[in-house]
């Protein structure tokens, strides 16, 4: 079972929780471990707004195992308002509807099912802002 590896990053997956640097104010997503030499309280949890714009996108037509039933699906790099770039699927829109710079917002969706007896992994996707 893959329980722990999805559970431990649930805050990032479910509500786009990244980190903000306490002194510089830099916001980063995904959250990362402390680097050697950094004080233990250098970064604090920070929930991003979930709003951003499409930096680029593609359509996956030859999917990896576990995603066969979803194909073809839209995948994008989204530039979030706070600065970070994030990789995620686009949802609730047609394959030919997407353009670079299109405004999008985060929603929570099923990412994949880990087989008939396994987890259903939920996480962020992005949809067009209407």
């Amino acid at each position: 079972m893959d329980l722990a590896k999805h559970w431990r990053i649930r805050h990032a997956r479910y509500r786009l929780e990244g980190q903000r640097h306490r002194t510089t104010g830099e916001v980063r997503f995904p959250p990362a471990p402390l680097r050697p030499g950094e004080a233990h309280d250098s970064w604090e949890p920070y929930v991003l707004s979930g709003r951003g714009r499409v930096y680029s996108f593609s359509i996956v037509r030859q999917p990896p195992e576990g995603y066969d039933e979803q194909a073809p699906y839209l995948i994008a790099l989204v530039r979030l308002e706070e600065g970070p770039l994030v990789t995620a699927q686009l949802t609730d829109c047609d394959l030919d509807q997407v353009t670079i710079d299109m405004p999008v917002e985060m929603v929570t969706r099923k990412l994949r099912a880990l087989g008939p007896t396994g987890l259903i992994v939920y996480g962020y996707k992005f949809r067009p802002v209407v």
Partner: protein
Amino acid sequence: MRNVYIVGTGATPVGEHWDRSAASLAVEALAAALGDIPASRVGALYVASALNGSLEVQSQVGPMVATAAGISGIEAVSIEAGTASGGVALRQACLAVASGIVDLVAVVGVEKTTDVLDARRERALALAGDAEWEAIHGVTTTALWAMLMRRYMHNYGYGIEDFAPFPVNAHANGVANPNAMYRFAITADKVRSAPMVAEPLGLLDCSTAADGAAALLIASEGLARDVSAAPVRVAASAVATDTLALHSRHDPLWLSAVAHSTATALRAARMTHRDIQVLDVTDPHSITAALVLEAGGFAERGAAVALARDGAITPKGALPLATGGGCKARGDAVGANGIYQVVELVAQLRGQAGAAQVAGASVALAQCIGGIGATAATHILTME
């Protein structure tokens, strides 16, 4: 540190080897590289393989190849760095020989990708990206390159058709390579009309993962003259890294590992870009080749596609690329690609590349990158 030479090369054809195991492919390539040299003279073995663990072919492929080659007992280790595995393994071999600890090292790249269905292979390949923040979203390495291609087109005003010279050149050159998977030419029209794999990447701008093994023998200067009539010197060897995830990079269109390893290699060889007469890079898609040429300093930013359009990348151009067919026409042997490209460039330096020969080539650059460029390994080869 001692000078390091390539004294033997060997490779199997790249393709769908249904009747062959990874071990049998590896041993065939190694035997060809050894020629008349007894395997017992090999002091260490480095085996490059990207997927043999994740596709459940075999882990510990170092001892697997050593056993199959009849040299079980020697130091043998497997190296995984995605599609940069071959170049990184070659670097380890160069360090071992340069250090003076061993005089003769074998490097074997081997990949067995066709024993599983496409979806399993796509999943294994996607693990070269960030498993938790990229692969879990169903993004493939191909789709990452596709997104870079779309952004590149947006930034610089190119159309899909402008990229066709890369696969057209690769296929034209593949005809002359007896180990290439696709030994036929294609036209820009065919590239344009091919079905989409991951928009804007079409089928004829995507390499085909296949089986294959390639091998090199690396020797110290003293030994090289004894065992080879035409040793090729490894004038520089450099590995650099970038972030695992594409989205972590300040400028996604800039492959900084490529920039660093190219610059380091040129400096070590005391050369400039103009000294390089033929090169081979990781080029599963034209956008990959374009971004590599730009980060490596062989083209201005946004200009690599225009250079290709003007014919610079053909064997008669100023920047001959993919003279063995590249990933597209040679076939994509994943972790073994970095060895195949050196085998092909050694043939160039020895004047044995047939119709794809670059006239008078005596300095070559081989570079392979892992996944979306998190690892880059660069080697400069010279015929003295």
